[in-house]
């Protein structure tokens, strides 16, 4: 980890593992924050469904297109698996990570297509509101995750371009590579968790 300005000679640098641990812990805590964010939508779903105010849970024929939902979930799961593999196989991180990024972006495109083919609008009852709100914010967060994945892939690309490799002699990775590994692990963990929440969303919104 480099500071933007050099430390004076008499100042001891901080332990290297602090930043690595911060990434590891940070990713887990983000999972907690994301869970509570989407828990609000889960709560809204069951709350409005159980209240069924004025019998308006579903106004008219309101059914989410399950086929599109399945495709989106499959794409998301594939992306998460590929990124997790990338974090564990440094030599293949670039192609695997790029594919994961592509699939993450594809899932957003598919979601947009799904919105255009819905047979109902946001005001078609409580279910429609939850569906639109939940999927929209899921897509927004997916875009943020895609940015995070892209930064990891770009770092891998730049390091490979500059020829930085793991030093074999000591068996200890260099700072940059170690940090990149920690970043990729954190990113892939969060992405996998986030996709898991997407699977829950699919079950609730399409199957229940």
């Amino acid at each position: 980890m480099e500071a933007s300005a050099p430390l004076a000679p008499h100042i001891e640098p901080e332990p290297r593992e602090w930043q690595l641990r911060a990434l590891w812990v940070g990713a887990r805590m983000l999972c907690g924050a994301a869970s509570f964010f989407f828990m609000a939508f889960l709560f809204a779903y069951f709350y409005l469904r159980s209240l069924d105010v004025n019998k308006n849970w579903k106004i008219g024929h309101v059914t989410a297109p399950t086929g599109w939902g399945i495709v989106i979930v499959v794409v998301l799961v594939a992306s998460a698996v590929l990124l997790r593999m990338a974090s564990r196989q440094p030599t293949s991180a670039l192609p695997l990570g790029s594919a994961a990024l592509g699939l993450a972006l594809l899932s957003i495109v598919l979601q947009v297509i799904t919105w255009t083919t819905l047979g109902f609008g946001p005001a078609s009852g409580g279910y429609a509101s939850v569906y639109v709100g939940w999927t929209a914010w899921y897509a927004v967060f997916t875009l943020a995750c895609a940015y995070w994945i892209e930064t990891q892939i770009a770092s891998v690309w730049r390091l490979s371009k500059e020829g930085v490799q793991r030093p074999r002699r000591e068996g200890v990775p260099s700072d940059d590579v170690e940090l990149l590994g920690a970043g990729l692990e954190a990113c892939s963990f969060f992405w996998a968790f986030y996709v898991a929440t997407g699977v829950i969303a699919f079950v609730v919104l399409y199957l229940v």
Partner: protein
Amino acid sequence: MSAIAVTTEKPPVWRRLIGFNLLTAIVLGVVGYLIGYWIGGRINTPSTSFFSSDAGENDISVLLGYGFGVFGFLIGLGFANYPIRRMLGHPPTLAEHESADEGIGRYFRLCTDHKVVAMQYMVGIGFFFAIGGLNAMLIRSELLQPNTHVFGPNQYLTLVGLHGSMMMGMMTSSILGPFANWLVPLMIGSRRMAFPRIEAFTFWVLMAAGVVLLTTIFLGGFQTGWTGYEPLGAQGTVGYDAYLGFFALVGVSMTLLGFNLLATIITMRAPGMTWTRLPIFVWGVLSTAILMLLASPMLAAALFMGMFDRTVQTGFYVPSVGGSSFLWQNLFWVFGHPEVYIVALPGFAIALELLPVFCRKPLWGYRIAVAGMLGVTLLSFFVWQHHLFVSGINADLRPFYMLSTELISIPTGFIFLCAMGTLWRGRIRLTVPMLFVLGWAFNFLFGGISGVFLSDAPSDVTTHGSFFSMAHFHYTIMGGLVFTFFAGIYYWIPKMTGYKLSETLGKIHFWTLFIAFNATFGPLFALGFMGMPRRVVTYPTNLQPLNDWVSIWAYCIGLSMLVFLYNVVSSLIFKREPEVANAWNSKSPEFQLPTPVPVHDFDRIPVFDADPYPYGVEPAPVPAVAPAGGAA
């Protein structure tokens, strides 16, 4: 990592003004707002004006304006530069504009030095605290007479909403923002926060939120109070959009502030700083940060639902299309009650941190206090429905929420007990910070006891929505948070700035505030019992004498704040009398450092080898300086 930068020649003033700084941020913020507003105008059609089409108002324009405005503001400060560099694969860095050579300019731009961010928080929050306080003065001016005489009902309600939102939104970070950002790294032996840019981001987003809230004045205001209740919100003008945007930004700021503090405390403790050696202030910060991390996202989600209702015509809170205003009440209070503890816990932490210093004895029941803080944190997620006792919730749910609410008084009692145990037989020094801590103990006792009446469904039915409940939460929040906030200011500001504050003026400030506070809020209990409801601009004439008494004393609170302001300005700007490194003879790590604290905090990572409160144990152990090895 904090760093000592290589000295470079300063660019000319004009060059510094056109860089990434607050000035550029304001310009881009305004431009962004106009662009967003214009785009919103293109999107909006009568068919998408769900609530306000009759008034010709455009929620999409206003909300897009806020979004683009905040985006432009952050770009102007330089927050987009690093993310773009990362997209291009540049290696991560941690520091930006930390060098002391950059002078006062660091305070007006993105700076990652935790001490600079803390001071930014102190000034920024102080500004909005003053506005919130002035709102309170205006509210009390209106209540000088039983009928409307200064403002109309709508303006009065907007003032009430502005006051509440400002205090509950901005002041939420009043201790964690300035004090935790400044102190936590020093107390745990780190040089920085885990994610320094996020630390700076939380501050600037909070400032943007404050400005967004103030714009409601130009948009018709909002008549919902700080709770933003539906269906009042749905009936509101575009001024309610300002409320939604404000609290959403506050939610983002709080979530990331909690996230950053938690990551720092968990991962960046110096060798020897075990969990049982963690200063109690850090435990308080940790408990609060957990609440912020988990509760704030719920608030953000609830607000985004409200925004969707007003823009894309979902119906989360609209009964005619399958929604329910009770959904808002539930989601708001799932956040809202932990929010009360987000405000209260840092106050407890400051009180417990300062008591050993001024009693010259170890903190009594350190582990009990920690258990109390964690207990409050956990239980605060299970009490929210006591706010809905009179909102038609299933009667079978009442006993559970009554019990859980009363249960939370046990861990709170632990904390109070530890404070009293520390006072017991201590060699008490009645310094200004200590006076404020004692004031906290007195006020919070009344706040806590009156809370029991509100947690019981039978008594809550008669006191809910009355001035009794208002008196209760002012005793807990103002009596708890604000008094400890000032205790922290008088205790740490000399260390943070390097200059003394006047002790005499500090004592005048305390006594005037303490007397005026109790004279203002004590009678509100009586007014509540006499049937005066909150958020109603008129009241029966027989309540006027008591209301006038309260208003006059409320102005006295304002006067006491002027004493404080005078103290700060005269001591820190004009007199500038240097403070010694350890004026309170404290054994806390931050006071073992020179004043002012160097940019890089420590030359070497410290090793901690003693409990945090070794008062009465001589010679006093201080953090040793030794090579780093890793946190224990």
